[in-house]
């Protein structure tokens, strides 16, 4: 299971990833930050379509291992209500050397952000809320490669799978 309402356990994730062939361990954690485009964020809520989401994250992990020749890749994503500072996503990569480990971790996180059916709703200090605009994942969509705006609130940025955005509250 890659999508979970439970708090993410980094120690367990690292323990599960142990690999004697690896000299590099890279961990990326995305945490909820308290601001977005000038608005004060009080909390947020992630929802997901789990049947497809779990499958796609596992496919991205396998793809990352194959593409970067790393030994291990695992991505887990939290769902439900999260407060400021809580961890929303971890990516764990083990590889022989750091160069491919860093590259693989970045690739895996970007791929999950752009392809996996997860939605982020921000709740602001002024009492308003908005879904963050995201990436269209319809493989048949003519503008698939351009990403899209769909939040309807102007709360987020457009982004493209080839040009990862930096519009979330994560310490990316």
């Amino acid at each position, binding site marked *: 299971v890659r999508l979970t309402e439970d708090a993410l356990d980094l120690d367990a994730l690292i323990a599960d990833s142990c690999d004697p062939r690896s000299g590099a361990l890279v961990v990326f954690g995305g945490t909820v930050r308290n601001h977005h485009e000038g608005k004060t964020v009080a909390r947020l809520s992630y929802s*997901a379509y789990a049947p497809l989401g*779990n499958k796609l994250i596992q496919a991205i992990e396998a793809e990352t291992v194959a593409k970067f020749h790393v030994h291990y890749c695992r991505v887990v994503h939290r769902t439900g209500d999260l407060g400021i500072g809580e961890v*929303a996503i971890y990516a764990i990569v083990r590889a022989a050397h750091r160069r491919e480990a860093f590259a693989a971790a970045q690739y895996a996180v970007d791929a999950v*952000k752009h392809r996996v059916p997860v939605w982020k709703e921000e709740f602001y200090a002024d009492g308003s809320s908005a879904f963050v*605009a995201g990436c269209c994942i319809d493989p048949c969509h003519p503008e698939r490669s351009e990403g899209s705006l769909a939040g*309807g609130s102007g709360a987020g940025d457009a982004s493209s799978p080839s040009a990862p955005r930096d519009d979330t509250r994560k310490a990316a």
Partner: protein
Amino acid sequence: MSIVDCRLSIELFGVLTRLVGTSSIVVALRPGATVADVLMDLAAAHPETNDVLAECAFAIGDRLVPRTRAVRAGERLALLPPVSGG
């Protein structure tokens, strides 16, 4: 065929849940209807969803399906707006 057998469940996600006001609806299914037909009916009933539906992907179970796919009674069709995880 009973009435129940002629119905399709639609699961809504992201901003669609706010626009429609619920996360799940059940619609009557016309024989031979495709995903696109279901969307047309949904947009007619909820015109405010039109722009988002144009950007949606669609899934049944753990598979993405195209708009041309025929939908069958008893299936659950998930409407997936542009994603914003991470």
